[in-house]
């Protein structure tokens, strides 16, 4: 079986096809179209039929995400002045054994072997016909090279097979736009925290500008690597297991706290706590100086979270003070963490604002966010020509021109 | 003519103080301190280490502040010994008494009594009378100029570890850079010395 044998499965004849549905090029800016209810030329006697006709003209995008160990496929429909409709949002995760991270090569193999199944399943769940899809969105970057490439190839293949335009999407912008859409946060400061990214972002002049970031490793990477040291399971995710263990931790140990203005650093923390954990696992007697009780792995998880998250909340607060915002949106896989959400909420409340966060369906890498951000760009006339449909490991959030916002 | 100065930041607390020159009973006072005679519970300060009125006030404030903060507390027997200790830039208590307190041979001294004036037994006139009768010497006004007339600048610099004062200029001079001569008046040197001393005192508590 060759690497590209999946192509066969993706011919239009294999998917549910509605020959009556018209493919409408939808290039109107979102929220500026006239909703059908107010359309004076609507002469239909059957409002359901006309609604169906109207809705069938609304743009639909399919999004493919695979920048790390999650492969996601999502299908979205944008209807003016209404929340975006999530027609399908499915995911399959490559889980590595405890003590191991996911290697690019194995992750890419995982994505290649699952992408066809996921695309077919998403189409089936959504009830959308291939002909109704307006564009194919894929993650252009940033991310791990091999997994990105396998998903970009899948997207390109779909575009050629189905004769649809391609839209390359910045992964970070995908998270931000999906977070805004789901939470309704209008113009928040965004904390984007995942395995590969730690950024504090605010919107200005059609760019998502990075006000602060981790200067070395990302917070999620710090958590993942710590989990490996302690042999914490990667199923369903190392961060989730750390969070559960942290709930049983009591003693706070002194961990390096490194914040420089709106930037922060996690490599010192990782080095320290790795050394501490290694000592502990090799039998060294570590005790809490006040109570004399032994330090447990749960205490380490607790201390790591309390310290690292305090750093994140602090740099976010600085950015909020800087741009004069009281809303904060947390996106990215680490954004699922309820303790982080709680701490951020306390800070935001003290500033007279509130925190917006989403659950694991949207926080963790997914296809729907790529479909959503891609469709926003597509409706401003943006497409990625096939010969430019590359992917890139490095792609800064502020490189994207955000034409769909004022 | 002793003075009464309310201690800003510590409501109710007042300083009662008097500055003396030509003192003849320093040895007796010193002996009473060593004997821990409660009638002699004062802060007796050697004015040769003082550069302004603010300096002993800051020391008294530190002492009262630490007295009133249950998380900190005093490190010496009482608020008066603590005031002498608070003049010091180091944590060595014995050393601080020796450098900033009086010695048997002192000929000038600043006496301070710190009291909570909200106490029912408090009587300002009694306190001031006791203060005046305590010391055999000439009372002089408690002002920065009269303190500066008594200051031993070399001793101040040594006690407060101020060898780094104007280090930038010294550095530039070593590299053959011209000195900005005459750009600083004698008054400015005093002002710089004053804040350098206050800074060293303020940083003492910091571990």
């Amino acid at each position, binding site marked *: 079986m060759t690497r590209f044998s999946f192509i066969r499965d993706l011919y239009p004849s294999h998917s549910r096809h509605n020959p009556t549905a018209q493919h409408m090029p939808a290039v109107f800016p979102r929220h500026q179209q006239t909703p059908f209810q107010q359309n004076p030329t609507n002469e239909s006697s059957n409002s359901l039929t006309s609604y169906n006709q109207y809705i069938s003209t609304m743009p639909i995008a399919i999004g493919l995400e695979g920048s790390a160990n999650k492969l996601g496929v999502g299908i979205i429909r944008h209807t003016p002045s209404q929340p975006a409709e999530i027609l399908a949002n499915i995911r399959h995760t490559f889980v590595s054994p405890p003590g191991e991270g996911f290697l690019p090569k194995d992750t890419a193999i995982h994505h290649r072997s699952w992408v066809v199944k996921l695309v077919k399943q998403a189409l089936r769940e959504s009830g959308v016909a291939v002909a109704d899809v307006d564009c194919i969105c894929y993650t252009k970057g*940033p991310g791990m090279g091999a997994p990105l490439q396998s998903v970009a190839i899948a997207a390109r293949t779909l575009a050629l097979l189905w004769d649809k335009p391609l839209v390359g999407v910045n992964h970070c912008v995908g998270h931000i736009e999906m977070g805004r859409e789901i939470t309704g946060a209008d113009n928040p400061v965004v904390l984007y925290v995942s395995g590969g990214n730690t950024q504090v972002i605010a919107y200005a002049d059609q760019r998502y500008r990075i006000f602060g970031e981790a200067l070395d490793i990302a917070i999620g990477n710090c958590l993942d690597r710590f989990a490996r040291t302690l042999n914490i399971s990667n199923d369903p995710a190392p961060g989730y297991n750390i969070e559960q263990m942290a709930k049983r931790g009591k003693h706070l140990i002194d961990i390096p706290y490194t914040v420089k203005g709106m930037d922060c650093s996690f490599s010192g923390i990782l080095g320290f706590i790795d050394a501490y954990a290694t000592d502990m696992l090799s039998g060294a007697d570590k005790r809490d100086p006040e109570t004399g009780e032994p330090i447990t792995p749960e205490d380490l998880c607790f201390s790591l979270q309390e310290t690292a998250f305090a750093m994140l909340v602090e740099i976010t607060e600085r950015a909020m003070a800087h741009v004069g915002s009281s809303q904060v949106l947390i996106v990215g896989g680490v954004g699922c963490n309820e303790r982080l959400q709680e701490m951020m909420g306390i800070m935001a409340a003290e500033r007279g604002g509130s925190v917006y966060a989403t659950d694991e369906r949207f926080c963790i890498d997914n296809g729907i966010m790529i479909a959503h951000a891609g469709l926003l760009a597509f409706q401003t006339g943006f497409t990625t020509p096939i010969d430019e449909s590359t992917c890139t490991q490095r792609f800064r959030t502020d490189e994207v021109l955000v034409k769909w916002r004022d | 003519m002793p003075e009464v100065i309310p201690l800003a930041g510590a409501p109710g607390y007042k300083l009662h103080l008097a500055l003396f020159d030509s003192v003849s009973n320093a040895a007796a006072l010193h002996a009473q301190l060593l004997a821990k005679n409660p009638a002699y519970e004062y802060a007796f300060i050697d004015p040769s280490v003082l550069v302004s009125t603010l300096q002993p006030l800051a020391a008294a404030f530190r002492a009262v502040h630490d007295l009133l903060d249950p*998380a900190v507390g005093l490190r010496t027997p009482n608020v008066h010994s603590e005031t002498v200790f608070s003049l010091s830039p180091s944590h060595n208590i014995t050393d601080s008494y020796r450098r900033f307190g009086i010695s048997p041979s002192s000929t000038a001294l600043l006496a301070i009594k710190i009291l909570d004036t909200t106490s029912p037994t408090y009587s300002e006139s009694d306190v001031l009378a006791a203060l005046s009768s305590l010391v055999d010497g000439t009372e002089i006004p408690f002002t920065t100029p009269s303190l500066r007339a008594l200051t031993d600048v070399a001793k101040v610099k040594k006690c407060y570890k101020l060898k780094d004062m104007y280090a930038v200029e010294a550095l*530039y001079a070593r590299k053959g850079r011209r000195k900005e001569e005459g750009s600083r008046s004698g008054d400015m040197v005093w002002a710089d010395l004053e804040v350098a001393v206050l800074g060293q005192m*303020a940083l003492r508590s910091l571990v």
Partner: protein
Amino acid sequence: MSRRSIDGTLIKQGAEAHVYKSTFLLPTVPSLIKVRPRKAYRHATLDLRLTKHRCVSEARLLNRCRTMGVPCPAVYFVDERNGEITMEWIEGPSIRELLQRLIDGSRDKRSEGEEEGEGEGESDVLSDSRVLDLMRQIGETVGKLHDIDIIHGDLTTSNLMLRKERRTTLETNSSENTETESNDGGIELLQGNYEVVLIDFGLGQVSVSDEDKAVDLYVLERAFISTHPKASGLFHTILEAYKKNSLGSGIVLRRLQEVRLRGRKKSMIG
């Protein structure tokens, strides 16, 4: 833990600190109290540790600078458990306010004289020798700071102040300077003696690294140009004075070139 209330007027409330104007011990000694308030989101032990550490670090930097001869507020009193530093009150405008006033003032003048057809008011005031002298003093002051191996960490024109006169003793209002400011564009403030005073060392550190010093200058450059786009041409005068006066300026300015090229941009891996 209940906090002692601060006896003073709140003048600034930032993300990290609240700043009050108050007096120190005597009503005649104005002071500034910088308070780092408790952060409820942080574990109490961590909060106390950080507050203490930052308070102590800032007080040490201020004291080191001031003693060694770099103009900055003197430290009067530190209550590190409560995150409070009481320091010298610096009377005078920030360089940011001053530059803004100069630019606005010249714009008003220009519009008044528009009938005459003269349209170069702004460049007039910004090329005034007194303004150039101010820029040189800024460059010298930053140079001195770096020569004693202190990195400010947040150099902006808001964190540089202009002080006309200094008191010879703290407790008496001896200097006759108080409020001699004129509303006439502020250029008169640059007449005669003054000093440029560095404030807010909350992000400062001791470092001998040329890279750190270059980044410090880069932060100032970015802040200067974005805050005063019309006066951005003045920045090279600051750098010239830095170059002329600071001992390690050669290497630092070469590093600055690299830092500029690199920006603070860093590629992120997803």
